[in-house]
Each structure stands twice: as structure tokens, then as C-alpha cells.
């Protein structure tokens, strides 16, 4: 033992005896530091991101139809995977729930749809039409106000066109459009409006409305699911505006993120972004080109607000702006431009004025909870389906409020989802049946088609058909025969929701640490029951995103590998040099009776001790740094990191695996790199000791 102690002591003393050793030590120190910090970061991010993925949509695992070409890729928003439908969810729910570790099975399917919006003038014209229509007649004051609003819009367009004509070549606009605008802005046109409102409205709708190109298409990604089951299973979900879709109802919950991003007044949203950057990220408009860009957009794009305001509100806005800016300018657009031209000194004050005084005059959101939204989606077969869904409110995932990834998906009830995906719901069947009945259409099986269609007295059939067609038109005009159920009021039982097509399902586990075993047992259950399902874990189900941590880990390990390979080469060289410097000493040891094995273990021990000393120092520094980061938190610089961090900051935890790993790597690297110089040292002849240094 004392022999080994001698080795250790010699090693420890040798460490600082040579500059080379210090260089070797510092490389090892840097390597272990990097390994411990990197390992802990990646591990913490892995855990945080798994929380994000599991807690928002994916669950711990996902099942899908085994025959599908693709596998679920929940967060790959713009690439909907080609999944075959599972015909009846109720048939798979039971077997999956029978696993003791499964706490919930939630049907899910991801799809994207288009929401088309009419422009502002369309919306005002629609209000005006209602206000003058017999059934929905409004007081004259309301009608006058709407008329004034439309007239103001017309003048805004006229002014815009004037500007465009100044900069663009003559003829950039259809001269007819100029004539139409002139007509629509004339006193004569508006004086005659009340006498014949519908003709005037038609003129405005057909000739004027299209001149305001602010209509919008919104791409909406959504998860079609059993909303109640979803809410119970994913407890990070919380309602922000409006309310939860009542049990069994059709309805849409917009993600708060999408709601802000897509449905909020653009100027207001940009103000929010600047405000957040200034207050939460300590950025400065003066130094940040992105923020300068937002200011510039706000300065230039004031029309959305201008068009929204009727003359009375415009007047109010002008006086608010005049007071705030201490200006005598009377043009609303000009005032807004000046108002939005903010810098670091005046931003917060303007922000407050905007929300306290201007916001009440405008519609901050172009869609409010409780309103209907028409959603169009391409079905798998390529046709377009459209449904009207009531938007009940907005939701977000606790801790993931700022993440565009987690917030990219809205939630839709399963029935509407099935409609949009092109699957036949009981309502559709009922509607088709009633249509068939009303039209007198009968189902003709293909093999009997010839006999049914052409057998018997063909001529009378045709006659009857013609007769029917005419009758249909009459019936449609009457409008009462075909029953169209108001689907927004329809309430479905759990049974109806479950019995039907789903694209897949999320499975939540009671004990997530037993993911691997449960995956296997679930797959076994599916195979045994002949369910033709594939079960995958959350990481796979998340699509490319799930691979991110894998990639990050691969990069980390690769970088560490490179560092240590470089270290290995350098250490090897350095130990060779150190050994050459010590030929006399080693020869002496051999001469006075040290065996080769002693010399071998001496060089190895020295290098390993060197590695362990500096490795410990590196690990200690790394751990201290991780603890510091855990205190301070790493801010999520962008929304992707926000998702990976599962919140605004990542608080990394020291990963014992990284510590152990660092020591193993250090041991292996030092041993391997010392092996060659150590064998070289054993070849030093004792004669070297005799050589005089004269």
C-alpha cells in the first residue's frame, strides 16, 4: 500500500513540476467543465422540452393506425402527416385504458385550415345592410353613423388612390374605379341612400369594397379532440378569454398566441411586442433593428385603425392624439403616424395612452369569443369542406404562454374536426338522408344499376325526374322542407363523440418514468386485440421537434468527443515529452531496482492523477456554474427556446450522469493517452542512469 502511496505522492508532486502537466491539466479542466455544463444543460432542456411536448398536446405516447404511411408529427405544423383514420375510437379506448399505467386516452388529430376574412368595409356594409333591412331595422341614428363610417372609408380610399397615382404611372388604376369612387363620395349619392338603400348598398359592395385590399387569409392549425377529455388530461391548459366549450358542444378554442398574433389589431400587437421587448428583455429601440422595424411598420400602417373608426370616433381619436402630441394637425392618419413614431423615451407613455384612450374606440380583436368562424379545410380526397364553428374563447398552456410552438395549435371539437377532415358524422348522414328524401333520390347499388335505371319504362322515369327537379326548386324557395339543424346548439353524448373516426390518440401515463415498459405493453395489447395500431413515444410523435434534443445531445457529445480526441493527442504528446525529460530519473529507478511494471504504473498513475485532479476541478467549476445558472436562469431569447425551456427561463439542474460521465471520460482519455508514453518509459534502460551529463 505504501508503495502505491509513494506512486500517488510522486504523481501529485509531479503535477506542478512541469509546465506541460499544467497545459494537460487545463485541457482536461476545460473538457470536464464543458461536459458537465453541457450535459446538465441538454438534460435540463430535454426534461423541460418533454414537459412542453407531453404537457401540451402529445401526451406521453401516441397511437395511430398501423397502416399509415407517416407517423404523427404534431409540431410540424405545415406538413400534415399522411395518417390512416382509426374508424372507431370507442373500440380502442377500452383496451388502451386497461393498462394499469394509463391515466387517460384522448382522441386527437392535427389539421390545418384556412379562415377567410372579409375586409373592413364588407363588415361595415353588412352592419349597414342589417340596420336597414326590415327584420333587423335599427334607429336612424345608427344608420346615419354607419353611413358616415362608410363615407369616411370611401374618402380614405380616394386619398390613397390619389397618392398612388402621384407615384405610379397614370393608369395604375382603372379609370372606372376613379369614377365609382367619385360617385360614392358625392353628396348626391348619400342623399339618395335612404330612399333606395339596397341598390346603393349593392353599388358599394360590388364597385367599392374590393378596392380596399385588406381582406385576410389566416392559416389555422388545430387539434381536433374530445375537448372535455383533453382539458382533464392536460392540466397545463387554461382558459384565458371567454369560456370552455360546454360539454358535448361543438366549438373552437383559439390558442391565445394565435389570437394575439392573427386576430388582434396589428398596430396593437406590434405595440405589445415592443412593450415586452423593452420591459422584459431590456432591449432598446435605439439599438434593436427588429424593434425599429416594428415602429416603422406602425408608423406606416395606420389604415387598419383609420378604416375602423366612424367619423365620431375619428374626431375623438384626433383630439386625444392632438392633446398627447401637443399638435395642431387635424389628419387622423398623420397624427397616428407621429404617435406611433416612438423611441425609448416616449414609448411607455404612448403605450399607456393607446390602451387607456385609443383602444376603447376601436375593435382590438376582429373576432370575439362567442362569434362564429367559418373554417375551410381540404379533405384528404382534395375537396374543400367548410364548417361554422363558434369560438368560445382562448386558451394557453401554463408556462408556455410565449411559445409559438405550443401556441400554434388551437383546439376544435371532434365533430367539427371530423366534418372538416371529410368524415361522415351522424349529422351528415341525417342531413344527406333528409336531402335524399326530399329530392326523392334512391340509392342504386352498382350491380343493379342498369336494371334499375334503364329497365322497365325508361321514358316515364325520365319524365318523373324532370318533374322532380322543378319541384325541388319550388321547395328550396319555400325553404322549410329540408331540415338544417343549428349545429352550434347540438349537444353530443360521450358515446356519440367516442363512436367515430379519429386520427390518433394521446395517452397519458400515471408513472411517466415507466414509459418504455408501458409502450411495449400497450403495443402488445394492440397486437393481441388485433387493433392494428402503432404506439410511439412523445419524442417521435412530436415530429422533427422531438428530434431536436436528440440532435442537441448528438452535437454536445460530438463536440465533447472532438475536445477529448484533441486532448488525447495533446496529452499523449505532452506525456511523451515529459517522459523524455525524465529518462535519467526513470533509468535511475530501473537501476536501483524498479521493475518495468513499476515504471508503467508510475506514468499511468501520474497521468490519471493529473486527469482526476484537473477533472475534479473542471467538474467543480462546471457544477458551480450550473448552480449559478440554476439561480439566475437562462432567458429564452426567442419563442423556440421558450418552448425548449418550457417557460421564460431555463433553470438547469446539475445532472449526476454528466458528472459521472465526465469522470469516466477523463479516466478513459488519460489512460489511453498515457498508454503509449508509459510503455515507452518501460523501455528506458537502466544504463541511462549511468550516463554522465558532462
Amino acid at each position, binding site marked *: 500500500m505504501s508503495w502505491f502511496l509513494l506512486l500517488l505522492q510522486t504523481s501529485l508532486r509531479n503535477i506542478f513540476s512541469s509546465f506541460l502537466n499544467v497545459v494537460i491539466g487545463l485541457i482536461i479542466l476545460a473538457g470536464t467543465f464543458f461536459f458537465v455544463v453541457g450535459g446538465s444543460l441538454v438534460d435540463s432542456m430535454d426534461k423541460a422540452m418533454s414537459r412542453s411536448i407531453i404537457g401540451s398536446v402529445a401526451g406521453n405516447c401516441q397511437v395511430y393506425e398501423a397502416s399509415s404511411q407517416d407517423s404523427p408529427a404534431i409540431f410540424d405544423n405545415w406538413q400534415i402527416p399522411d395518417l390512416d383514420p382509426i374508424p372507431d375510437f370507442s373500440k380502442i379506448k377500452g383496451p388502451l385504458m386497461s393498462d394499469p399505467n394509463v391515466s387517460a386516452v384522448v382522441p386527437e388529430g392535427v389539421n390545418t385550415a384556412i379562415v377567410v376574412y372579409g375586409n373592413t368595409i364588407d363588415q361595415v356594409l353588412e352592419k349597414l345592410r342589417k340596420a336597414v333591412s326590415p327584420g333587423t331595422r335599427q334607429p336612424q341614428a345608427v344608420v346615419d353613423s354607419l353611413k358616415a363610417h362608410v363615407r369616411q372609408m370611401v374618402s380614405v380610399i380616394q386619398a390613397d388612390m390619389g397618392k398612388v397615382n402621384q407615384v405610379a404611372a397614370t393608369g395604375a388604376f382603372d379609370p372606372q374605379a376613379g369614377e365609382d369612387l367619385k360617385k360614392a363620395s358625392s353628396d348626391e349619392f348619400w342623399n339618395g341612400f335612404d330612399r333606395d338603400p339596397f341598390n346603393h348598398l349593392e353599388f358599394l359592395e360590388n364597385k367599392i369594397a374590393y378596392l380596399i385590399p385588406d381582406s385576410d387569409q389566416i392559416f389555422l392549425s388545430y387539434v381536433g379532440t374530445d375537448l372535455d377529455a383533453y382539458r382533464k388530461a392536460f392540466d397545463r391548459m387554461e382558459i384565458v378569454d371567454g369560456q370552455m366549450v360546454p360539454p358535448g358542444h361543438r366549438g373552437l378554442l383559439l390558442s391565445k398566441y394565435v389570437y394575439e398574433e392573427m386576430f388582434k389589431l396589428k398596430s396593437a400587437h406590434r405595440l405589445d411586442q415592443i412593450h415586452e421587448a423593452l420591459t422584459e428583455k431590456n432591449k432598446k429601440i435605439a439599438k434593436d433593428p427588429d424593434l425599429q422595424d416594428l415602429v416603422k411598420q406602425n408608423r406606416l400602417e395606420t389604415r387598419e385603425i383609420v378604416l375602423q373608426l366612424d367619423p365620431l370616433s375619428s374626431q375623438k381619436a384626433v383630439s386625444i392624439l392632438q392633446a398627447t402630441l401637443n399638435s395642431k394637425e387635424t389628419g387622423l392618419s398623420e397624427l397616428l403616424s407621429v404617435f406611433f413614431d416612438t423611441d425609448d423615451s416616449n414609448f411607455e407613455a404612448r403605450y399607456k395612452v393607446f390602451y387607456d384612450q385609443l383602444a376603447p374606440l376601436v375593435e382590438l380583436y376582429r373576432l370575439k369569443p362567442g362569434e362564429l368562424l367559418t373554417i375551410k379545410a381540404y379533405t384528404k380526397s382534395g375537396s374543400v369542406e367548410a364548417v361554422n364553428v363558434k369560438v368560445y374563447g382562448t386558451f394557453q398552456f401554463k408556462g408556455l404562454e410565449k411559445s409559438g410552438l405550443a401556441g400554434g395549435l388551437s383546439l376544435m371539437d371532434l365533430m367539427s374536426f371530423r366534418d372538416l377532415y371529410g368524415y361522415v358524422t351522424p349529422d351528415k348522414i341525417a342531413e344527406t338522408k333528409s336531402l335524399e328524401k326530399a329530392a326523392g333520390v334512391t340509392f342504386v347499388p352498382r350491380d343493379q344499376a342498369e336494371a334499375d335505371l334503364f329497365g322497365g319504362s325508361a321514358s316515364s322515369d325520365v319524365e318523373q325526374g324532370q318533374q322532380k327537379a322543378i319541384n325541388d326548386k319550388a321547395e328550396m324557395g319555400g325553404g322549410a322542407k329540408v331540415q338544417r339543424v343549428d349545429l352550434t346548439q347540438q349537444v353530443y353524448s360521450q358515446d356519440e363523440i367516442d363512436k367515430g373516426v379519429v386520427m390518433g390518440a394521446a395517452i397519458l401515463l400515471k408513472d411517466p418514468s415507466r414509459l418504455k415498459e408501458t409502450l411495449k405493453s400497450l403495443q402488445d395489447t394492440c397486437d393481441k386485440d388485433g387493433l392494428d395500431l402503432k404506439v410511439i413515444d412523445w419524442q417521435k410523435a412530436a415530429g422533427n421537434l422531438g428530434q431536436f434534443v436528440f440532435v442537441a445531445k448528438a452535437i454536445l457529445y460530438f463536440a465533447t468527443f472532438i475536445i477529448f480526441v484533441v486532448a488525447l493527442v495533446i496529452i499523449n504528446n505532452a506525456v511523451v515529452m515529459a517522459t523524455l525529460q525524465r529518462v535519467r530519473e526513470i533509468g535511475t529507478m*530501473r537501476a*536501483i531496482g524498479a*521493475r518495468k511494471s513499476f515504471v508503467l504504473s508510475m506514468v499511468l498513475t501520474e497521468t490519471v492523477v493529473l486527469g482526476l485532479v484537473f477533472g475534479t476541478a473542471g467538474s467543480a467549476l462546471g457544477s458551480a456554474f450550473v448552480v449559478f445558472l440554476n439561480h439566475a436562469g437562462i432567458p429564452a431569447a426567442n419563442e423556440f427556446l421558450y418552448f425548449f425551456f418550457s417557460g421564460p427561463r431555463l433553470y438547469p439542474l446539475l445532472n449526476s450522469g454528466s458528472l459521472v460521465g465526465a469522470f469516466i471520460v477523463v479516466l478513459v482519455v488519460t489512460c489511453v493517452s498515457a498508454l503509449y508514453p508509459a510503455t515507452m518509459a518501460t523501455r528506458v534502460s537502466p544504463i541511462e542512469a549511468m550516463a*554522465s551529463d558532462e
Partner: protein
Amino acid sequence: MAEIVSIQNVVKEYHLDKVVVPALRGVSLSVTQGDFLSIVGPSGSGKTTLLNLIGCVDVATSGTVLIDGHDTASLNDRQLTDLRLNTLGFIFQSFNLVPVLSVFQNVEFPLLLQRKFTKAERAGRVDELLEKVGLDKHTQHRPSELSGGQRQRVAIARALVTRPKIVLADEPTANLDSVTGENIIDLMKEMNRAEKTTFIFSTHDAKVMSHANSVIRLADGQILNGKGVPAGAH
């Protein structure tokens, strides 16, 4: 007195590229236990080669070298190493102490390699020897903190700590001034008397040579004056 070293017709040749350089050309020699033998001769005469052969750090090209009855030609590296450890002690011209070890640890080193003594036994021996060489006040010093003479004393203590039968010293005073050199030889002589340890040392210093009981004169790899001739005979 028993014969401790016996050398018969030893030839040692070195190969430098394709040229064969003879270092020893048929040397025969016998050393009795307790001798204080000096090997002298000009540079290149084969002194160091002869010491290397006796010290078992090198093997002869032909002829036999018997050290304490062991034929070195028949031993493998490990056996030679053990023979060096247990039977021989070395004193080097440049002291060759381990720089990172203290005086005490340098002396203790061969005992640790032997692995047959307890800590107390080792400490007893080391302290005793350090006292004899007059360094009992310097046990914790590093070699770099000692003078040349002191370092050579440490080396002597290290060479003697295993109580070897033979101590070999290759020009032990060459790096020392004459007074210190004299002291070192006196110390070696004293050890030779007290412990009955055989000392074989090479030198080209006539003063040092005069302390020897016997002198072997080498020239061109051959012994000039027969074997083990008493110094007084010349």
C-alpha cells in the same frame, strides 16, 4: 574471504551502425567480499562498461559474469532487476536523486520497491543511515535544497539502505570539489568498514584512488595489472 564478483574472459562490443566497437576485450576479474576496489583508467578504457556489467544493467557479449553466484547472462530482465534491488547499491556521478521526493523518501525508495518491511522498520533504517551520513537534520528537504556533497550523501544512504552486498559507484566524486570528494570517499570507506559492504568505484582522481584497497587499471578494454592486485603492490 568469499568471492562476490567473478568475471571470466568478458568481451563487450557495441555496434555503432555497422562498425563494431570493442569496449572490453577479454577481462577476467575476481572481487572478494568487503573489498574497497577502485577501477581506474583513461576515458574510453572501459571503466563504465565494466561497472555496468557488474551492476547488471548491461550484459556481456561473451564470457561470464557471476554476481553473488548468479550468472547474469542466464537471468531475464525481471530477475536482473531484482538482483540489482536486493544485492547491489548504486552511487551515480550526478547523484540521480528523484527531484520531487524528499531526502527521506529518496532513501526509503528502494525499501518500498522491496516490499518486505513495515513502515516502522523502513523509518528505522532510513533514519539510522541518514544520521550516519550526517543528514538527520535534512530529512524533509528536497534534493534541490541541498549542496552537491549533501546530495551524494543522500545517494550513499540510498545505495546502502537495502544492505546490499556490493555498492557500485561510477566516478562518485567527479561532480564534487576536492574537499567534499575526500569526505565522500571517507564516508564510503567508513561504511565499508562498518558494514563489510563491498565497494567498487571508478575514478581517475589519484587522490581518491589512494583510498582503495585494490586497484584495477584498465586501458583499451583490458586490465593492465592482473586481478585484484592490492594497491600497495605498485
